[in-house]
């Protein structure tokens, strides 16, 4: 079975946190359709993203979203060969909605289903693109909830190389924006301001780059910005200049750690994933470094940087094709170590 990919498309469901995402992926034909019910607009009224509304929305949106995605792919449920869903990590209530729906659907259709690790989805998202990286590669996963460097030795075989000791990169963007009076979450707005800011007027430290290691710490950077802002004239121009200084410190730090991780692992490919991966300065600096130092850098398209169903459908399709599936029990894992996953091809397998 392991060398015989299932011939039918796999439905993927993502509902681990704030987004409801659904997609259909086929190992031969690629991504057939994907839909995201973005709840950001809804939650903006509440000053943030709202877990219970998110979960309630997963319930309310999931089945219509599945129907819409199948229609877009020109398929009916009977055409499906398997179902993949995010089984963790994430909010227990949110995960259960996706897991229950996926299990029930697979049960009724008598097809296999598999729980996917949310981070594996992110790591494999660049495989959705025409020019896909081959393992081994290093992945930088930077989002509101994560700042990780991961060594991808093979699909399913992951090593955590570095992690944040406190705030995630996206969280630092959002909170720094808030400290300077931008509405929360203001990370993207802060990045936009930074483009107008003057380089060099404010310089902040590059946390933890003056010592060896691949861990991050962004909490102190936030405090530095707060002090700079409080002691400033608080004009529009100054805000942009501080934003510029902050973004440069953040991007420099991420770049330095990526280069270190590549050197330490010997890999020649770098994958950037997560919402901060859409940051223009980060993309430009890494592309430049790649050209200068002779490695390749891969960015998923921005919609696959953030949470989505396509990455779950892809990861699930690969695992189902390798003969992996779980029993029919509904299990979710709010906390789940990426390094504990089963390799895609067990030792001694084909």
């Amino acid at each position, binding site marked *: 079975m392991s060398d015989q990919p299932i011939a039918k498309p796999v439905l993927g469901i993502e509902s681990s946190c704030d987004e409801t995402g659904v997609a259909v992926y086929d190992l031969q034909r690629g991504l057939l359709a994907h839909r995201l019910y973005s709840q950001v607009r809804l939650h903006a009224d509440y000053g943030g993203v709202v*877990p219970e509304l998110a*979960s309630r929305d997963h319930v309310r949106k999931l089945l219509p979203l599945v129907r819409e995605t199948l229609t877009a792919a020109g398929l009916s449920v009977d055409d499906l060969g398997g179902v993949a869903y995010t089984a963790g990590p994430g909010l227990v*209530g949110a995960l259960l909605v996706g897991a229950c729906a996926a299990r029930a659907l697979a049960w009724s259709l008598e097809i296999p289903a598999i729980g996917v690790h949310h981070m594996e989805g992110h790591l494999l998202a660049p495989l959705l693109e025409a020019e896909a990286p081959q393992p081994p590669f290093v992945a930088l996963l930077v989002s509101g909830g994560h700042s990780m460097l991961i060594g991808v030795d093979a699909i399913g075989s992951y090593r955590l190389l570095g*992690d*944040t000791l*406190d*705030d995630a990169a996206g*969280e630092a963007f959002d909170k720094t924006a808030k*400290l300077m009076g931008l509405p929360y979450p203001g990370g993207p707005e802060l990045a936009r301001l930074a483009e107008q800011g003057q380089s060099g007027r404010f310089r902040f430290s590059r946390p933890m780059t003056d010592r060896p290691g691949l861990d991050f710490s962004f909490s102190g950077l*936030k405090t530095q910005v707060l002090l700079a802002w409080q002691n400033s004239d608080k004009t529009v121009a100054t805000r942009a200049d501080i934003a510029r200084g902050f973004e440069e410190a953040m991007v420099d730090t991420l770049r330095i750690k990526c280069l270190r991780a590549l050197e330490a692992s010997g890999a020649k490919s770098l994958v950037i994933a997560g919402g901060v991966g859409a940051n223009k300065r980060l993309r430009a600096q890494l592309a430049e470094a790649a050209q200068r130092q002779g490695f390749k850098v891969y960015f998923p398209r921005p919609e696959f940087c953030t949470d989505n169903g396509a990455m779950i459908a892809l990861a699930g399709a690969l695992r189902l094709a390798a003969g992996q599936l779980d029993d029919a029990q509904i299990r979710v894992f709010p906390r789940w170590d990426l390094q504990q996953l089963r390799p895609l091809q067990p030792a001694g397998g084909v």
Partner: protein
Amino acid sequence: MTELSVHLADEAAVAQWAQSLAPQLGQGGIIHLYGELGAGKTTFARALLQALGVQGRIKSPTYSLIESYAVDALAIHHLDLYRIADPGELEWLGLDELLGDHSLILIEWPERGGSELPAPDLILQLAHAPAGRDLVVRPLSAWGEAWLAATSPLLSTA
């Protein structure tokens, strides 16, 4: 005893204060931690968790909403309710299941949880001061009162 105010001059003072609190928390309890963005809640929480014996990374729970740890028999749950808009959402966190005799629950932004939150033993309020931070401590249970009575003499010089 109503409340106690302390000035914490720097991060070392925060850590020292957390150290003094930690030994009282072996049986668990509920602590509400108030303060604006950047007031030092997370720094304080990190210092407290480290003083309790948590090893390794102590990540901000802002996005995950909850980060849990176990030290010996004590289950520690560090919550950040910043992204909660309606107290009814707490149901989805499975908060009821976190409560217990050997469970310590430290909650940042408790005002977002409103009346749905279990009553605290201790309320801590952090605020910016011209140099460092001001901390106000308010006990709300017999446990909290007893702790403060025993500890406050040690803190008068803080």
